[in-house]
């Protein structure tokens, strides 16, 4: 069976994929539909949805909520992806070294990983951003720093079990060097769980970013969903639309990514394949 067929067996995963596709489309076409800066004051403040030319209403300063959502999509997706890539990169290296060499190196790396894991991740992220000054880079770094331990633990476990497999030992007996064994022989065999955990991490990263922006720790020059929710929170009773629509955008995106992650898990994990 092809990969796509396996994936498509999970209907909700396909739904998720469609939603993600639409959000990406929205992020790409934002400058076409909303050419103005989303921070610009576009008209009457506190307009309800559909009035004064605002599709989803405007906030207390008269900024267009719809424009904010469209432009914020790029920020959320970009930060989610970048942070995940960095986290997976670091996590794979740490996990691979620990799992492959074992012993002292494993002890050292895993104790270090545990140190990161003992601190509640969101508080840790707030702390990091507060220290580094809010900017896109610092947010990406902060999210990556709190996310890599999970990847490292996963990869370590996979490498530990692969290390003893006979095909890996066969590589030793033909004199292959360690780096090559790790990269070319072992890593491809644990790609599936890495892809799955990575896809789910994108969702978490988007949530953390929104949370940071909500608390006012986002990049002040870049529109994001979390910032919108944060800006509208005091008006929740008088102007519900300011918080609600960006909130729904976050919800949909995270849900869609989680569904796709689940679908990938079902498709890539042959043991679960028959569990219907």
């Amino acid at each position: 069976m092809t990969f796509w067929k396996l994936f498509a067996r999970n209907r909700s995963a396909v739904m998720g994929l469609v939603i993600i596709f639409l959000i990406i489309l929205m992020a790409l076409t934002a400058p076409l539909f909303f050419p103005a800066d989303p921070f610009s004051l576009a008209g009457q403040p506190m307009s309800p949805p559909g009035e004064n030319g605002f599709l989803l209403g405007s906030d207390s300063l008269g900024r267009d909520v719809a424009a904010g959502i469209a432009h914020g999509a790029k920020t959320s997706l970009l930060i989610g992806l970048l942070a995940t890539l960095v986290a997976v990169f670091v996590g794979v290296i740490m996990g691979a070294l620990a799992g492959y060499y074992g012993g002292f190196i494993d002890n050292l790396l895993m104790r270090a990983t545990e140190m990161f894991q003992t601190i509640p991740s969101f508080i840790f992220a707030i702390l990091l951003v507060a220290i580094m000054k809010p900017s896109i880079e610092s947010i990406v770094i902060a999210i990556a720093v709190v996310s890599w331990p999970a990847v490292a633990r996963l990869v370590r476990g996979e490498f530990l079990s692969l290390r003893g497999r006979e095909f890996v030992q066969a590589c030793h007996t033909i004199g292959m060097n360690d780096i090559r064994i790790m990269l070319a022989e072992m890593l491809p065999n644990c790609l599936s769980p890495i892809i799955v955990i990575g896809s789910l991490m994108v969702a978490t990263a988007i949530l953390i970013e929104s949370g940071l922006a909500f608390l006012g720790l986002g990049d002040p020059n870049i529109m994001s969903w979390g910032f919108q929710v944060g800006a509208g929170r005091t008006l929740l009773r008088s102007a519900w639309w300011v918080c609600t629509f960006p909130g729904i955008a976050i919800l949909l995106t995270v849900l869609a990514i989680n569904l796709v992650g689940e679908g990938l898990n079902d498709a890539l994990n042959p043991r679960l394949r028959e569990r219907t």
Partner: protein
Amino acid sequence: MTRLLDIRDLHVALPAGGQRAHAVKAADLHLEENEILCVVGESGSGKSLTARAVMGLLPKPHVHISQGEVMFQGEDLAKASEARLRQIRGSDISMIFQEPMTALNPVMTIGNQIDEVFRFHENMPGKERRARALKLLEDVHLPDPEQTLDAYPHQLSGGQRQRAMIAMALALDPKILIADEPTTALDVTTQAQVLKLIKEMQAEHGTGVLFITHDFGVVADIADRVAVMQNGLVVETGTTDEVLRNPQHPYTQGLMAAVPSLTPRAARARSEESVLSVNKLVKTYSSGGGLFGGKARVVHAAKEVTFDLARGETLGIVGESGSGKSTVARCIVRLNDAEAGEILLGGTDLRPLGRSAMRAHRSKIQMVFQDPFASLNPRTKVGKIIAQGPLLYGASTEEAREKALELLEIVGLDDRAYDRFPHEFSGGQRQRIGIARALALEPQILVADEPVSALDVSIQAQILELLDSIRDRMNLSMIFITHDLRVAAQVCDRIAVMRRGEVVEIGATEGIFANPQHEYTRDLLSAVPGKGWFASETAVAS
């Protein structure tokens, strides 16, 4: 009179889209009281599913009985309700499995697990249950039954666990005992004891035993009647004498011929030239201890192991599990580091060499692994798996490719295998690929660690033949690790017998088989199943 068990026209359907529609097709089998029926066949023959169909233990709904009946004392089990089956299981029909470690619950004591059987099926006070359990453990000759009752499965050895399983299976004096490869995971001496026990218990209780196995030696030792299965069909049934002495079906004949003879083949002249000598090799494993100290347990896997390997000869290292035979092999190819001793290859001691210094010598000693499914990277194409070695040692892509194609031909595979992935091949074919990979670096010495123990007997014979012809063609020396004395008799020029890390006896194969010096060697030889049935047929060996 109704038969104890009568299987008529049994069809077991497999999920649609598989290789075959039926795992078992039109099987007719019957079992009388006080009789042992062996169902024998290779992997995929449907023998295990037949047994499970009787117990109602098929993995439904994917696999189910689609046609036919399983008559147990006049009652059709194929149509019985789940509740009725539960009643029958354990009390009237019970089962023992291949791996007692997984069949027993690891967090319950043996006593509790036997107790459960009584509690589910019979109403009796706790004291009496304990007394019955104790009696059962005595019956299966477990040492110190009182203590065993309170022991957890991991505290017993493999043989003891299987005895406990048998005790549990016989707890309610069932009319039928189904044994699914009950001795396959056991050492040969333990296997002999367990087979004896099953036979003894069967005779005592008059039980009908349905015994599933792939091993004709075991069949010869235990069966009253034999049914041979191939691809879901019962191809031949008859008494043990009829089937083993005078097989009618060509498939049975083939299987019988493939059982390696215990008579060693003719000795060959031994070369004067020694290619490898291992001197007083020592390797210990320690477990426990850890970060905060604690007492570590130390196991001696190799105690001053010493032997020589001459050019062109095959040295067998035989022994039971835990004897250290694999450890020695792994130390020689430097997958494990021995603590002391010498591994002399052409005047260089390999043991103390570091990783980079060792690289220059790696190509001279290559290894063939046991498990053909685990030994090939599932994500790498076969051609690349073989060509990798030469590429690492500086061959050009074109040279490596040619070498790989040439080797594929030598090991008897098609050119087209080059661009395929390992999962497209059967176990025997994969083992051929593994051999090709080992040969790609043109080694002087081939270390084969149980290369045929995961294979069916007919494939086993082909691989042994291949290894033999390659050794002669390339003038290789071979170290052949095996637990199977029949296999050792057919491929080895000399044999080293290992027990608990020590070489207790070493010598020419013929000498070891004809006149074993050490007591342990004699034990091993007498425990080989099916002695006397196949040994006379020496013509088979050629």
